[in-house]
């Protein structure tokens, strides 16, 4: 083999994007000083959905774990926060990572059940587990049973006494979680595990034959995703102020919408969920006041993409222009370093 080959990942486009992305992050991080609360709130909501979308994409797009039960971890994280803050007086911001740990711990026994299933059965299995979580919590009267419970203003005010300060802190938390998740996914995919994950995505059989421990890799991914999803859930319900089984374990709000974003944007890419996120929010802002038509249009868009553009928008762009903003592939270049 010619020794004058070097392996590199970055491309000119990705390096330019890194600079642009850095500028964007700084702009968003300083938004509280120059933007209004409405845009802060919107960006924060987008950030939490970006985190959920990246996490689901990591599961489905890379590890091949097409879960339709991620709402289980959103709900468990949310309930964990309500219990920690309401019963034990733990500071809400500290309760967010702790809720992630609770959710990760619970994901282990769940994983041992659902990992026995494959493909479509796995998808249905995860959904069933989420429904069981919802039903079990609806039976616990100490958690408010089917009616749920509220987070009292006194608890939320321990985050910050004034609305402006709270808005700012919640905004940074949401943005922070999104960036952490994005960084985590990117780092994970560039690591050895990432290589293993990509191999599993392309063919589980083949990857096992070349020595990838598929069970361990998938389990690690599932638990890490459960941890982060639980944390995101805790942050979501800290801002919603109220949780009930139907709200916490909502299939539509925490999984279907997320799948929509990832599928439209392009599954199995880091850029895809970002593109999907923007499209979803644009459609929602435009159509939300049209009642049922809003849902019908969303459904039609999703069906169109599933039939006509299965790789999503980013899949099409990446193919057409060989564009990778988050370079994961290894490219060979002739010549020394």
């Amino acid at each position, binding site marked *: 083999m010619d020794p004058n080959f070097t392996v590199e990942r970055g491309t000119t486009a990705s390096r330019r994007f890194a600079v642009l992305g850095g500028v964007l992050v700084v702009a968003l991080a300083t938004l509280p000083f120059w933007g209004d609360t409405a845009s802060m*709130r919107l960006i924060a909501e987008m950030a939490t959905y970006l985190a959920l979308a990246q996490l689901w994409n990591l599961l489905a797009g890379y590890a091949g774990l097409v879960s339709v039960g991620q709402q289980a971890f959103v709900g468990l994280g949310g309930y964990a926060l309500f219990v920690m803050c309401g019963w034990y007086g733990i500071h809400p911001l500290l309760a967010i990572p702790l809720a992630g740990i609770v959710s990760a711990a619970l994901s282990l026994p769940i994983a041992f059940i659902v990992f026995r299933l494959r493909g479509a059965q796995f998808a249905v299995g995860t959904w069933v587990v989420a429904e069981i979580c919802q039903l079990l919590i609806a039976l616990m009267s100490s958690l*408010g049973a089917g009616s749920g419970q*509220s987070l009292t*203003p006194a608890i939320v005010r321990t985050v910050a006494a004034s609305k402006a300060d709270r808005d700012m802190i919640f905004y940074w938390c949401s943005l922070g979680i999104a960036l952490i998740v994005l960084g985590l996914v990117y780092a994970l995919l560039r690591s050895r595990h990432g290589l293993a994950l990509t191999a599993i995505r392309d063919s589980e059989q083949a990857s096992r034959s070349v020595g990838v421990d598929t069970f361990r890799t998938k389990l690690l991914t599932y638990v890490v995703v459960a941890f982060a999803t639980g944390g995101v859930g805790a942050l979501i319900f800290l801002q919603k102020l109220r949780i009930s089984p*139907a709200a916490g374990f*909502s299939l539509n709000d925490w999984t279907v919408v997320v799948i929509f974003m990832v599928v439209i944007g392009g599954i199995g890419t880091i850029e895809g969920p970002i593109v999907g996120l923007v499209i979803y929010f644009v459609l929602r802002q435009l159509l939300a006041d049209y009642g049922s038509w809003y849902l019908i249009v969303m459904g039609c868009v999703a069906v169109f993409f599933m039939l006509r553009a299965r790789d999503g928008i980013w899949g099409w762009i990446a193919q057409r222009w060989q564009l990778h903003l988050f370079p994961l592939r290894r490219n060979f270049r002739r010549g020394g370093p």
Partner: protein
Amino acid sequence: MTKGISKAELKRRDVLRAMAVGGAGAIVGPTFLARPARAAGRTIKIGFVSPETGPIAAFGEADDFILAGVRKVLANGITIAGTQHPVTIIKKDSQSNPNRAAEVTAELINSDKVDLMLGSSTSDTTNPVSDQCELNGVPCITSDAPWQAWFFGRKGDPKKGFDWTYHFFWGVDTISTVFCDLWSSLDTNKTVGALWSNDPDGIALSDPQTGFPPLMKKRGFNLVDLGLYPTMSDDFSAQINKLKEAKVDILTGVFVPPAFATFWTQAAQQGFRPKIATPAKALLFPSAIEAIGDRGIGLSTEVWWSPHHPFKSGLTGETPQQFCDAYSAATGRQWTQPIGFKHAILEVACDVLKRTKKIDDPGSIRDAIAATDYTTIVGPINFAKGPVKNVATTPLVGGQWKKGSKYKYDLAIVNNKMEPSIPLDGKFEPLAS
């Protein structure tokens, strides 16, 4: 009518006064010329959150009609502390989803910066809307959910109450009394079977201390409590067997309409036919009875409002009958109970704004809410006279579905013991066996 004239006259005087001021200004200096003839204040924004799509969309089906009526009255704005303010009502759909309700409320607070928030129809909308407002210091009025589900469901402390949020509706105690009054008027074995949906209303009503069961015992009824069932349940055969075994004459509980339709069909198949069936929440809408068909005749329910209620809209002067007729004429639909409350909550909002001293101070709007003493199309609203702080109660009577004349089925008021001013228009009869 006299009120209308005086209002018009008042307006005329305002205009004259403003013109006089304007005229004086013109003489005093040219800078005043830029001012409009009438002192016009900034636009006041009211947020209106209600379920218009999703499983309980029936509650919000009249929203557009009701808002159109109120907007017409408010075309010239409201005079607040001597200044005429235009008013916009911003409607948001909660999609019958508590997550969405919290989200749109936050949007109304942060983006639209509403001065006053209104939320209505079941605790899945009223509670998240109120929680957001309570934390963010936005004056808020909600309605159309039993007040215990709203107050205790949000961890309210009867001694302290809430700072920013107010609610008007009847309570668990009221509906329990009405149901017992209904049942006592017929001859039965006094054995009551109950199934409760596992949702805020079912939990509030089934509570062994603060709910319905203690009152039943006190009134001499023997309760066969079958406990909470999952809200989306579609098989009631086990419960129906137990009801048959216990020889239940009276059936009650809390059901969403589709669940009750399933229950009632299965009850017929298994030969369970009580003398009285009074499920709460299930039979509010004519559509619920139409789904069951003629087997629905004779079922009884709570009635919060009807065209025969002896009240009048303080905003438009319409009687409930005129209001319902206008609704039917405009939409071709039969009246439903929530339409009165949707109108009433907007009436209260207008009354509050008119009495507000400093519109730019949310605390002043809140004080005006607390001081409300006003008669709406659904009855008098007074938060000072409520059972707990921040709550005002409205009257409740018992009704029974009968074969209709103009529409397929009609809801007749058959028991008014709690509120004798509301006229009866039928006699309570046992279910045909």
